[in-house]
């Protein structure tokens, strides 16, 4: 029903309805509407649509909407602040997480090592929590006892390390000497019974491991 020449005026009608029209355009539109019945009818219909839409009454939400909404929220309680903190300080957070994992590894190791354990060797005896190197027997290589005691009556050809335990006849051992006693430990003797020493031992053996790897040697005692 509308010719192409009216399209321009329909545009102006919408601009008018949006309050988006220039004063001279408004004059032009009004002049045209006076002379053109088709456009006048169109303008009326559009105005009716607007009035009709504006007659819509606000719908009332259900009375318990707010409480229903609040009930759907996840319970965050304390963690909300923490999450926020993590987001604000990502590097510190990463460092903290790293530390937590590291200490978990360390303490995990420490407590996993609460069991009585010792270096495998064929010629030794075990009485309860005590390892005995019998007289005349020779253990080759380093010997480690964890969470137990050791009595050396024979010979250890290497270092002796006791973690969380005692060397029962320590007095009788003559390091690197064959005199006076039958007990011989050719390497160093070490007793470790505290967390920090344990840590130090771990670090030291880690370092030695690296050193050995660099020098290509298997034996750290010499």
């Amino acid at each position, binding site marked *: 029903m509308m010719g192409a020449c009216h399209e321009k005026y329909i545009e102006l009608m919408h601009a008018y309805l949006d309050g988006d029209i220039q004063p001279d355009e408004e004059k032009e539109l009004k002049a045209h509407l006076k002379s053109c019945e088709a456009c006048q009818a169109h303008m009326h219909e559009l105005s*009716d649509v607007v009035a009709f839409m504006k007659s*819509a009454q606000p719908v009332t939400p259900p009375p318990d909407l707010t409480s229903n909404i609040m009930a759907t929220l996840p319970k965050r309680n304390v963690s909300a602040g923490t*999450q926020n903190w993590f987001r604000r300080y990502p590097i510190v957070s990463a460092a903290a997480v790293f530390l937590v994992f590291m200490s978990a590894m360390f303490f995990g190791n420490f407590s996993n090592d609460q069991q009585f354990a010792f270096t495998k060797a064929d010629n030794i005896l075990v009485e309860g929590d005590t390892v005995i190197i019998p007289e005349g027997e020779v253990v080759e290589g380093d010997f480690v006892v964890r969470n137990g005691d050791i009595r050396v009556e024979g010979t250890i050809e290497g270092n002796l390390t006791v973690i969380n335990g005692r060397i029962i006849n320590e007095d009788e051992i003559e390091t690197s000497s064959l005199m006076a006693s039958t007990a011989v430990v050719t390497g160093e003797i070490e007793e470790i019974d505290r967390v920090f020493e344990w840590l130090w031992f771990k670090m030291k053996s880690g370092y030695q491991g690296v050193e050995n790897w660099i020098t290509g040697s298997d034996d750290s005692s010499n």
Partner: protein
Amino acid sequence: MDAIVNKRIKQVLNGNQDAYTEIVDLYQARLYQVCYRMLGNKHEAEDITQEAFLRAFINLHSFDQKRKFSTWIFRIATNLCIDRIRKKKPDYHLDAQVPGTDGLDMYSQVAASGALPVEQLEKMEMQERVQYEISRLPDKYRSVIVLKYMEELPLQEISEILDLPLGTVKTRIHRGREALRKQMSQLPMTEVGGKR
């Protein structure tokens, strides 16, 4: 009001979930209104309003406090409504029964013919008719018309909510009005005689 809202948002971000109640209270009626007009169904409107507030809560840390919270939450809600409409096509959510018909709802009517016969339009209450005409609009016109005439929002804000250029919003409002005009020419409200 924005200052209060931003203060409450900070409190929520610091772990005070109760501070969100006030934000919900401020916007729930308007949000529900938009959802209801978009979807034409009370249950779905409530559902989407809840979902919008939940999403806003979860993503509150990403809200830029230099912007208006209302724009942001309207955007979440309108996106959810449009998703819902598209998923449910060609269901027009008109599950209200049509007056004067035996158990026929608008859905069966609209699905069958695309429009209700004049006799049924005549029996409609004014408010029913408003919702019926809105629900017949294609969704891209529906959202602009609802925001413009139900919420009476400025065009600039509509463009921010829908993330559309201002010119596109204007064009859609024009086309939406034209669509309504054509829809209603079948039985203009002036001829009904203002039955309310």
